[in-house]
């Protein structure tokens, strides 16, 4: 994953006085699933438009699959597939007609069109409704048909804008498997714009977080978590007779632990009550940083507490996102805010 299939340098686009994309510089590598995260108006859709040559930039440059999106727009778009945020289907036509027309537009070889359309209708579970007008389709069916249309010409690179919006959990899971399969098994690059942070965490090799047209973070989800979310939840399993002592000890170590430890796994009471009730001997606590973990362990062992297990929980992308969003809202660097 070293070849950059997308490379932008200070890419900028304005609409009137508003900067929709502010000096975006990034590289996306061949075969990776790259998440592009941000709220509405963060610049995600503008970026997809710029990278596919349907919108011109006001400054900076971009290369996609080695091509200039504006100068080589048609050649580039023949190699990319874009799923737009709205399914953008002709509701007055049947599902099959929607695919047949776009097969011609994307130059699918004529002798392959019928078979390819049938194959995709099957793959997305739309064979039975292929001849119905799209107006009669549910939101999920439309989204699946739009995904099928995106794959018609077997593009090398996919731009997916909210691909699972409107899908039920099962269909969303199938879409995730499909996207992951395209990247892992077929080597396609996926540029995934999403609000869905669970989806991004599950699928993406790397993510960029956008705020008001500016990229505020870039990296693998776990890397970003380490970088931007300093506090860490940790489960500590101790000998049953040491639960109360461990909780008291950790509660006093305010440099290492934020707040008072709680008894994990179903207990709502204090450590003493939990122990008395024969419930959990695992404490849940939040440490002030990754470096606090060995210190907390040392503190417990020095006081004779027998530690059976210590499990840190990596922060989710959601926590990273909200930390970055909060920092951007306050106008302060994210790391300071989270430290």
């Amino acid at each position, binding site marked *: 994953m070293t070849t950059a299939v997308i490379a932008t340098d200070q890419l900028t686009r304005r609409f009137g006085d508003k900067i929709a994309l502010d000096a975006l510089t990034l590289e996306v590598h061949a075969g990776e699933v790259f998440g592009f995260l941000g709220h509405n108006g963060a610049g995600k859709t503008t970026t997809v438009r710029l990278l596919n040559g349907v919108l011109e930039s006001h400054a900076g440059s971009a290369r996609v699959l080695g091509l200039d999106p504006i100068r080589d727009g048609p050649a580039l778009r023949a190699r990319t597939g*874009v799923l737009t945020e709205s399914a953008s289907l002709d509701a007055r*036509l049947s599902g099959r*007609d929607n695919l047949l027309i776009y097969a011609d537009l994307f130059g699918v070889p004529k002798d392959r069109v019928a078979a390819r359309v049938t194959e995709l209708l099957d793959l997305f579970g739309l064979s039975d409704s292929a001849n119905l007008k799209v107006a009669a389709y549910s939101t999920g069916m439309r989204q699946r048909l739009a995904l099928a249309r995106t794959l018609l010409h077997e593009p090398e690179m996919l731009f997916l804008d909210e691909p699972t919006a409107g899908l039920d959990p099962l269909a969303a899971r199938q879409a995730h498997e499909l996207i992951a399969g395209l990247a892992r098994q077929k080597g396609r690059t996926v540029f995934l714009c999403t609000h869905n942070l669970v989806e991004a965490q599950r699928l993406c090799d790397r993510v960029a977080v956008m705020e008001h047209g500016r990229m505020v973070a870039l990296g693998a989800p776990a890397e970003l978590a380490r970088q931007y979310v300093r506090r860490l939840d940790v489960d500590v399993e101790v000998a049953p007779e040491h639960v109360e002592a461990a909780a008291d000890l950790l509660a006093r170590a305010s440099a290492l632990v934020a707040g008072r430890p709680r008894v994990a796994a179903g207990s709502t009471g204090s450590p003493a009550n939990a122990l008395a009730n024969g419930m959990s001997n695992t404490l849940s606590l939040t440490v002030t940083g990754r470096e606090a973990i060995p210190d907390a362990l040392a503190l417990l062992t020095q006081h004779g507490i027998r530690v059976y297990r210590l499990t840190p929980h990596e922060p989710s992308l959601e926590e990273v996102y909200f930390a970055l969003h909060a920092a951007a809202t306050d106008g302060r660097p994210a790391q300071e805010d989270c430290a």
Partner: protein
Amino acid sequence: MNWRAIFAIVRKDLKVVLQNKGVILPIIIVPLVIFGVLPWIAALAPTMVNADSVRMGGMNLDELTELIARMPEGLRAEMAPYTPDQQAILFFLVYLLAPMFLILPLMASSVMAADSFAGERERRTLEALLYTPTTDRELFVAKLLSPWLAAVAVALAGFALYVVMANAAAGPVMGGLFFPTPMWVVLVIWVAPAAAGFGLATMVLVSVRAQGFQDAYQLGSVVVLPLLLLVFGQISGVMYFDIGAVLVLGLVLWVIDAALIWAGSRIFRRGRLIARL
């Protein structure tokens, strides 16, 4: 030019527009009324105007004779060999309805272009089209071609209907088949496609700014104004449609079309279109 892609868009637009009753109904009803019913009314004119109490077209035979007397010399010369009854029929069916015929390609092309350009944006189907490998020029040609082809087909169908109806209704009075005249053949072959282009090109310019199909259609209705001028020009005797006038009219329309389409091609750019979605 990628003609496969162009015809795919044409096919798509035609299929989509055929599902839109708001577009199809006026295209069917207008020619049926004008070219299916009017020939019969005009054919009955001679008998109706002879009855004092019955008036046709708001005038009696004397008024009609007076009107024809005010017509340009060339028209009067063309009508001279005919009886007053036949003159009345010729005046209505051949001359007055000639500019009215142009309403067909004009209306059909403008309503279909409104659906193809503004309607596509309204239905939010334009964006996917912009992400295809087509060039701006191919998209523009495709978007022009579908309403234009449909409008010319509608004009030809309306003309065929009119030929049948005019001869069926007025043939007995005229002493046999009398329609189409050479002027009408030129009108249909030379001017009607140009009129379709005029409605279309105007609508392209309007659609870029319109919010949706209805908005574009209402704004674009101004295309009928020049047509009304032609109708009033004929009634008032300022001009009449002979072969020469029709050839010139066609030429003027083609030149205007070329200018409007050139202007339209300047603003039909992906970046501009997508920024308005």
